[in-house]
């Protein structure tokens, strides 16, 4: 039974597949899929010079850079983007003292909303360290995504954020000539790192937009790299601990496996 029906079923699927293949192949030859502007002009993310300190198995965050990145977020990005998963108290990991964290929370522009339980009135109070970064309302074009996880939510996230922020440019004449329909619509901006090349976010960074307390020159590239590093930390605050733990675990496992190998060789020496 199996040897009768088996081959019949096999041939049935095979013929159906070859039929699909034939139909598809003829279609592909008759009307080859046209190339698109995205296929031709989209760019893969690039790394900042001289690379991120946190990449690689020994990578670590640079606290000064994270503080600068936080400053960029606070002064620029926070106008449009929230940071839902981060609490003010988490900033202690960037090297801020308890008093500094308190001050950052207290002075944060958007206040925490509370409802008076007696009257039901909405009131506001200053943020405290235990509060998460407040919600951000945005009236312009497009939907600014929450940034807490964005470096994990894109391929090569940190490099992507850096490239996106530094990648704004005029739409190439070559592109317009070849794909007139792909002209960037009004209200959008051309950016070859963005998935569909036209992004609703206006270029947020320009040289010297912020003034760094540590004297670092605030070029566009510097700010982009700093905020990308900061957003890598917000996406995975436990990264350093993860890698440190990893080395301890691997050290133990290598030793244990070496012993296991010797034990195995010893046991088997009697029968080989």
């Amino acid at each position: 039974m199996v040897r009768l029906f088996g081959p019949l079923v096999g041939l049935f699927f095979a013929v159906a597949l070859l039929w699909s293949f034939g139909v598809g192949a003829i279609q592909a030859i008759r009307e080859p899929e046209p190339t698109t502007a995205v296929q031709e002009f989209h760019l893969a993310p690039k790394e900042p010079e001289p690379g991120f300190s946190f990449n690689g198995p020994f990578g670590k965050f640079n606290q000064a850079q994270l503080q600068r990145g936080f400053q960029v977020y606070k002064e620029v990005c926070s106008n449009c983007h929230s940071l839902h998963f981060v609490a003010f108290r988490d900033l202690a990991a960037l090297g801020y003292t308890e008093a500094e964290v308190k001050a950052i929370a207290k002075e944060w522009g958007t206040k925490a909303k509370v409802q008076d339980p007696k009257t039901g009135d909405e009131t506001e109070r200053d943020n405290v360290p235990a509060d998460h970064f407040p919600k951000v309302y945005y009236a312009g074009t497009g939907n600014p995504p929450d940034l807490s996880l964005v470096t994990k939510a894109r391929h090569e996230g940190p490099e992507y954020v850096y490239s996106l922020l530094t990648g704004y440019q005029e739409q190439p004449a070559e592109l317009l000539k070849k794909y007139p329909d792909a002209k960037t619509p009004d209200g959008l901006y051309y950016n070859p790192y963005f998935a569909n090349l036209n992004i609703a976010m206006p270029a947020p960074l320009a040289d010297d937009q912020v003034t760094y307390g540590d004297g670092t020159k605030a070029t566009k590239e510097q700010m982009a790299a700093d905020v990308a590093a900061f957003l890598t930390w917000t996406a995975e605050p436990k990264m350093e601990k993860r890698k440190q733990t990893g080395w301890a675990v691997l050290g133990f496992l290598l030793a244990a496996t070496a012993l296991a190998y010797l034990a195995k060789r010893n046991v088997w020496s009697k029968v080989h």
Partner: protein
Amino acid sequence: MSFPWAKEYKPSHPLMQWLDEKLPLPRFVYNAVGAGYPVPRNLNYFWNFGILAGVCLMLQIVTGVVLAMHYAANSGVAFDSVEHIMRDVNWGWMLRYAHANGASAFFVVVYIHIFRGFFFSSYKAPREMIWLLGVTIFLLMMATAFMGYVLPWGQMSFWGAKVITGLFSAIPVVGEPLQQWLLGGFAPDNAALNRFFSLHFLLPFVILGVVILHIWALHIPGSSNPTGVEVKTESDTVPFHPYYTAKDGFGLGVFAILYCTMLFFLPNALGHPDNYIQANPLSTPAHIVPEWYFWPFYAILRAFTADFLFIPAKLMGVLAMFSAILVWFFLPWLDTSPVRSGHYRPLFRKFFYLLVIDVLVLGYCGGSPAETKYVLISQIAATYYFLHFLVILPIVASIEKPAPLPFSITEAVLGKDDQTAPAA
């Protein structure tokens, strides 16, 4: 059952003697994985993967049960609760990465285990039942992993669930109502998330039950071996302990090193970035792809692009995808060659290696966007896949001239066997 020369359990300590009378659990262990279980002396490292799969199952159950203590199966808070695990729960990040990468490790191990079975024809009599139970475990694993992936309620969770449950709507007449019944709604939502969590918690224990049956069935004929020649005498075997406990211990160490390297240094490499975006029914991701271990089957599903003999392409794809696994159930009866091991089957071996490449190609296409070139390649690869199991294997079995087999395992290992002369 075991070989007549299996050592008997003889407890020396009075406490163990007492226990052996009341509940012979130590005797059971001794006969299952101890000195009382004789095993072929020539097993290679491919025979480590069964134990490794068992380790993976325990790892998933332990990490999963602890994750479930902190996870909240409600579509409003599921995504946040997973981030709470990552950020606020002590060692929560490690648990979650251990569980997510544990699923991948489990599938790597099980795929190697299955392909070991293909090469050495481990499915042949008298081991058909072990094989059937194994395929059942694989199906349960796929269901478990699919539902687990929905739990973090990211974009791929949602859209993956939508695409896969949408497959049921291809079934004529009852398809649509069936899909709605499965989801508890028209699209994945809180009702679906809750039942997926419930089943994702349950199924691993069902798997555990089937694993016990799988090992029980294994202990009746005992393990096969790389020559495929059955055990004849005591000199063909060694006791499981200490020989294979030692070998499995070393194998486990190597596995743990590779697994921990992924877990601690590349924890998101096998996941899709879109799953770090909360599920949004109004925004379809550019490419919906399942986890890597489903890619070969996903490629088969998508390979059917034209209606065939009045059967809609979508239905063909669904039938083919399920058949791609179901054919494994029939292998013991499709491959009728009396020789087990691929080492002694020159023609079969070539087709086996072709199958390995074929499945890798299918996997690559399944993980790629549904562009014409990938679809055309998967159509050819899927054709070979079905022909291999259903047409080529039966033909090869009847036309192939196998290489001469060794007289016994002992002869294969030592070059001679004193028993070669008619046994006394």
